C-alpha cells in the first residue's frame, strides 16, 4: 500500500506502457487484445480515482511528487507531480482513453498494433501533464506525436498521408524553438527542474547581459519560441490548418483523443510553462495573444459554418472552442493577481476539461454515423432523426453541450472566461461574441443537415439501411453525457479543485 502511495503517478503513467509491452506476447485474438487494452486503460482510470481520493485541493504547490535521477550528465531528473490544474487534465485523459478504446472495438485491422499505439499515446499525454522537469516535459511532448502519427497514417481515411505528415511536421517544426529555449534554460541554470526554474529564471534582472543580448531580449525571444510551439498545438489562428486535416483523416478514436486531450497539451503548456516562466512577457504580449485567440474564436466559427463535411465542421469547432481557453489565459496573464485573472483562468481550465468531453463526444458521434453511411458529406444525410431517434437525441445533447447551452458544461466555462476577460480585454470580449453567435449557427447547421428535413429514402431501405446506435456506442457516450450534465448543473465537483490551484498560482 505504501508503494502505491509513493509511486502513484508513475503507476498511472506507466501502466499503459507496460500493458502495451505485455500485449506483444498476447496471442493473435482480436477480442482478447481489445479487452486487454480496455482493461489496462481502466486500471489507469481507477488509479486516477485513487489519486483523486487522496488529493488535497487546499494544499499549495505540487503533490505526489516523485523524483528520480534520470540523465545525470544534463542534471535532468525524472520529476513528477500534480496540482489541481494538472489533476483535472489527468482525470480527463484517463477517462477519455478507455472510452476511445471502447469506441475502437469495431476496428479489425491489426488490432494489436492499434491498441498498443493507444496505450503508448496515453502514457505520452499523461507524461506531459505530470512532468515537472522541462526535458521530461519535452520528451513526453514529442512521444505523444509518434503513436498519433501512425494512427492517422495507418488507420486513417483517404487523404491520410497528407494529413499525418502535415500533423507531424507542423507540430515538430513548431517545437524546434521550444527545444532550443529549453536547452538554453538548462545550460544557464544547470537544471531542468521546473520548480527551481520558476524562481531562478524569473529572478534574473532584465538588463543583465546574456549571450550578447540583454536578459530581457533573450526572454522575449524564448517567450515566443514557447508560444509558437504551444500555439500550433492548441491550435491558435493562423496555425490551425493542420487540425481539420488531421481530424478528418484520423480514425474515430484517434480524433476523440486528438481533440479531447492532445489539443489540451498546448493550452496546458501556456498555463504550466509560459505564464509562470514569463510573467512579464506574458503580461506585455497578452494583447497579441488575445488577438490570436479571438481570431481563432471568430474564424474557427466561420470556418466551421462554411464546411460541408461533418467531421471537418466538428474539427473547426475545436479551433473555436480552444480560442476561449487562450482568451482566458491571456486575460489571466494581463490581469494577474486580480479576481478577473482567477475567474478567467478558472474558465480556461474548465473549458479545457469541458471541450475534452464534448469534442470527444462529437467526434465519436460523427464516427458512428460515418461507419453506417460511409459518407461525411452533410448534403447526403437528411431527416435521419426518424430512423435513428436515439442517436439523434445523443447528437442533439452533445451538440448543445458544445454550443454552450446553460445547464450543460460548456456554458459554465465560457461564462467564466467572458466574465474574467470582460474587464481586462473588453474589446476582444465583444468581438469574441461574434464567434459565440456563429457557434450556434454551425451547430444548428449540422443538426439541420443530419437529422432534420425530409428523409433521404436511401437510408431507409435496402443495402444502405441505417441502423440505430448500439449498446457499446451508447456506453461510450453515457459517461461523457453524465459528466457534461453534472458539470453544467453542479460545476463545483471539479471547479473546486481547479479553483484552489488557480487561486494559489495567479
Amino acid at each position, binding site marked *: 500500500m505504501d508503494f502505491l502511495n509513493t509511486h502513484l503517478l508513475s503507476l498511472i503513467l506507466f501502466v499503459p506502457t507496460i500493458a502495451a509491452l505485455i500485449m506483444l506476447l498476447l496471442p493473435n485474438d482480436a477480442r482478447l487484445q481489445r479487452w486487454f487494452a480496455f482493461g489496462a486503460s481502466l486500471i489507469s482510470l481507477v488509479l486516477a480515482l485513487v489519486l483523486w481520493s487522496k488529493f488535497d485541493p487546499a494544499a499549495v504547490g505540487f503533490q505526489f511528487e516523485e523524483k528520480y535521477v534520470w540523465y545525470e550528465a544534463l542534471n535532468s531528473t525524472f520529476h513528477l507531480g500534480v496540482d489541481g490544474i494538472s489533476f483535472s487534465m489527468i482525470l480527463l485523459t484517463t477517462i477519455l482513453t478507455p472510452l476511445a478504446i471502447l469506441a475502437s472495438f469495431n476496428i479489425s485491422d491489426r488490432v494489436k498494433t492499434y491498441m498498443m499505439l493507444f496505450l503508448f499515446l496515453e502514457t505520452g499525454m499523461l507524461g506531459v501533464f505530470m512532468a515537472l522537469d522541462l526535458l521530461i516535459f519535452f520528451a513526453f511532448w514529442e512521444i505523444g506525436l509518434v503513436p498519433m502519427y501512425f494512427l492517422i497514417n495507418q488507420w486513417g481515411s483517404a487523404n491520410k498521408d497528407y494529413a499525418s505528415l502535415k500533423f507531424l511536421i507542423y507540430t515538430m517544426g513548431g517545437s524546434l524553438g521550444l527545444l532550443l529555449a529549453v536547452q538554453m534554460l538548462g545550460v544557464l541554470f544547470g537544471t531542468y527542474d521546473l520548480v527551481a526554474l520558476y524562481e531562478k529564471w524569473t529572478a534574473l534582472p532584465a538588463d543583465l547581459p546574456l549571450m550578447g543580448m540583454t536578459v530581457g531580449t533573450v526572454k522575449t525571444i524564448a517567450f515566443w519560441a514557447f508560444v509558437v510551439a504551444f500555439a500550433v498545438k492548441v491550435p491558435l489562428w493562423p496555425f490551425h*490548418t493542420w487540425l481539420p486535416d488531421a481530424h478528418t483523416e484520423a480514425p474515430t478514436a484517434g480524433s476523440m483523443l486528438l481533440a479531447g486531450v492532445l489539443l489540451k497539451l498546448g493550452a496546458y503548456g501556456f498555463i504550466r510553462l509560459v505564464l509562470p516562466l514569463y510573467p512579464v512577457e506574458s503580461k506585455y504580449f497578452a494583447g497579441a495573444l488575445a488577438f490570436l485567440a479571438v481570431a481563432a474564436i471568430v*474564424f474557427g466559427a*466561420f470556418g466551421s459554418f462554411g464546411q460541408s463535411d461533418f467531421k471537418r465542421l466538428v474539427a473547426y469547432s475545436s479551433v473555436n472552442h480552444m480560442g476561449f481557453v487562450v482568451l482566458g489565459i491571456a486575460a489571466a496573464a494581463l490581469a494577474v493577481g486580480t479576481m*478577473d485573472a482567477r475567474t478567467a483562468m478558472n474558465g480556461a481550465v474548465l473549458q479545457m476539461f469541458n471541450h475534452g468531453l464534448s469534442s470527444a463526444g462529437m467526434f465519436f458521434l460523427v464516427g458512428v454515423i460515418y461507419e453506417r453511411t460511409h459518407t461525411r458529406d452533410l448534403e447526403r444525410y437528411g431527416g435521419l432523426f*426518424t430512423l435513428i431517434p436515439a442517436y439523434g437525441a445523443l447528437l*442533439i445533447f452533445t451538440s448543445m453541450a458544445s454550443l454552450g447551452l*446553460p445547464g450543460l458544461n460548456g456554458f459554465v466555462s465560457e*461564462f467564466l472566461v467572458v466574465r474574467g476577460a470582460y474587464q481586462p480585454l473588453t474589446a476582444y470580449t465583444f468581438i469574441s461574441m461574434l464567434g459565440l453567435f456563429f457557434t450556434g449557427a454551425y451547430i444548428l447547421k449540422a443538426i439541420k443537415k443530419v437529422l*432534420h*428535413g425530409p428523409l433521404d429514402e436511401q437510408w431507409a431501405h435496402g443495402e444502405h439501411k441505417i441502423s440505430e446506435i448500439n449498446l457499446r456506442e451508447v456506453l461510450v457516450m453515457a459517461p461523457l453525457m453524465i459528466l457534461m450534465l453534472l458539470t453544467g448543473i453542479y460545476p463545483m465537483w471539479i471547479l473546486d479543485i481547479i479553483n484552489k490551484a488557480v487561486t494559489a498560482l495567479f
Partner: protein
Amino acid sequence: MTTELLMWLIPLPPALAFFAILLFTNKSKALSHTVGVGAAFLSWLGAMIVFVRALGVENLARNPFVSRINWMPTGDSYFQIGVQVDPLTAVMLFFVTLCVLMIFIYSVGYHNFGQPKGDHDVKGLPPHGATVDGHAVPSVEPMYSRFFAFIGLFAFGMLALVLTDNVLVMFMGWEIMGLCSYLLIGFWYAKPSARDAAVKAFMTTRVGDVFMLLGIAFLYSVTGSLSYKDVFSENVLRALASVPSGVFGLSAAGLIGLLLFIGTIGKSAQFPLHVWLPDAMEGPTPVSAMIHAAAMVSAGVYAVIRMFPLTSLDPKTMSFIAFIGAFTALFAATIAVAQNDIKRVLAYSTISQLGFMIAALGIHAYVAATFHLVTHAFFKALLFLGSGSVIHGMEHGVLHTGNHKVDPQDMFNMGGLRKKMPITFWTFLIGGFALSGFPLVTAGFWSKDEIFADAWAHGHWAVFLTLALAAFLTAFYTMRQITLTFFGEARTEEAKHARETPWTMTMPLVILSVFAVGYGWLGMPHWLTGGLVPNWFHDFVGSMLTEHQAELGFNIVPLATSLVVALGGLAAGYFMYRDVKSAAEDKLQIPVLVNKWYVDEFYQVALIQPAIWFSDTFVSKWMDKGFIDGILHSFGPATGGVGRVIRERFDIPVVNQFFGDGASEASWWLGRNLRPIQTGRIQQYLVLTLVILLAVGGLIYFLLTA
C-alpha cells in the same frame, strides 16, 4: 413543508418529467402524458401554496422568501444561486404555472390522444389521419410522448427563470427555453419550413443572448455579484448610475441595462429581432401558446421588469426602450391587419402587445407593464389555444371532405364557425375582446388603460399617440379575425363540417377565459371603485419599487382614448369584413404589409448571404485553404528547391564532378601516363631503382648537412 424547500421544488417536476419520459415512459403515450400533466400539476400546486403564503407576509418586497446555496467557486468565495419569492415573482408564478397546466391538459386533446394510429403517419410530420370503417378520422401524434417531454423542459426553464434570485440563473432558464423553443418549433422536423423556422428562432434570439451575456459579464465584473439583492441595493445602484461606461455617454447602469435589454429584444421579439416569432407558428399550437403567453416572450419582458431598478437609472436607455416598444407596437399591428393565417395574426398581435409592455417600461410605468404582462398572458394563451381549437375543427372538415389542398389555418377558408364550435367561439370572443381592450369587463382594458393613463400623465405624447394608434389597429384586426372566422356563412365545404373539439381542449379555454376577464378586476383603479375594492395589483407589485409610484387619479383623456380606439376598432373590423367572401375582396392586402415590410428579405440579402459567403468562400477557401495552406505548402517546394540548388550547384559540379569524378579522372590519367614505364624489363626497373635511391640519398644527405 417549509416555503424555502417548496420554492426549490417547484421547477423540478417538469424537469424530472422530461428525463423520465425520454428515458423510461417513451413507449407508453398514456403514461407519458400522465407524467407530464402530473408534473405540471405539482408545480402549479406548489406555486399556489407559495403564492398564498406570500400574500400573508407583511411587506413581502422587503422581506422576500429566499434560500441560497454555494454553486461555483470564484477565487476565495463562492458564487451562490438561490430561489426568491417577492411580489413580482409571486404574480409571475401565479399565471405561469396556471397557463402551463392548461397548456399541458390541452395538448392531450390537441395531439389526438385516444385516436387510432395514422395510416401513413411518420415521425417528424404532422399526423394525416386514419381510416376507421371507411371514415377518415384524426390520428394520434406519432411523437406524442416526446412532446410532453419537451414542454416539460420548457416549463422548467420558465420556472427556474421566474424563481431564481440572480441574473445568471435567469439567463440559464432563458437559454433552456431557447433550446425548447427550437426543439418544439421544429417539432415536425421533417417539414423544411418547420426546420428552418426552428433554426431562425434560435439564431435570432441568440443575437440578443450574446449581448445579454456581455451585460451580465459587465454587471458581474463591476458589482462582484449577480444576485438581485446585492445588485439592487442602494449603494450599488448609486455607484452604477454615477460611473460612466464610456460608450454612447451612458452610465454603467445604462450600458448594462441596454445590453440586457437587447437580450429582451431577441426573446420578446421586438423590432428588429421580431422576425422569428411569426415563423414560430410552424410548431404545434400548444407550443405557440407556451411561447407567446406562458413562457419565452413573457420571460423577455419579465427580465426588463426585473432589471427595472437598474435600467431606469439612465434616461437614455429608457428612451431607447420606450422607442423600441412603441415602434414595435405599431409596426407589428400594421402587419397583423394583412395576415390571413389565423395564427399569424395572433403572432403579430403578440409582438405588438409586447411592444406595449416594453414602451410602458420605457416611460417608467412599472406596474402597468407588469399588469399588462399578466393579463396578456391569460388572454393570449386563451386565443392561441382557441385558434388551435379552430384549426383542429377545420382539420376535421378537411378529413371529412378529403380535400387536403384546403389550408385549415387560412381564415378565408372559414366563416360561420360560431354555430359549429360554440365553446370555442365564446371563449375566443372573450379573448379577442380582452386583447382589443373592450371596456370595463375585460382584463385587457384595465391593463391597457393603465398604460395610456401613465403615458398621458407623464407627458409622453409620442408614446401615447403611437400606442393609441396601435390599439386601434389591434381592435380592428382582432375583430377582422373574429368576423372572418366565426361570423357570416361558411366559405368552404370544410368549414361546414368543422366540429367542436374534445373537453380536454375546451376546458382550458373556459378556465383561461375566466381569468381573461376576472384578473382585470384585481387592478381596477380607485376612481372607479371608490376604494370599495383595493387596487390590489398596484399595491402588491408597486411595493417592489423603492420609490412608491402613487396610483394615478382619474383623467378623461386616456380613458376616452381607450374607449374610442377599442370600440372604434372593433366596429370597423366587424363592418368591413362582415361580407367579405374571399381574400381577393380584402382591400387591406397591401403588398408591403402582406410581405411584412420585407424585413426577412432584407436580412437574407444583407446578413445571411454575406455570412454564408464569408464562411465558405472567404474563410474556408481563400484564407485557410488558399492563403495559410498556400504558405505551408510553399515550404515543401521551397525546401525542395534549396535541396535542388545545392545538388545542382554544389553536389553535382563540386562534390561529384570536381572531387569525385575529378579524382578518378586524375588517377586514371596518372595511370595511363605511367604505363610507358611499366615495361616488364628487370634491367629498366633496376636502373630506375638506382636513380631513385641516389636521388633520395642525395636529398637526405643535403638535408642533414645543410
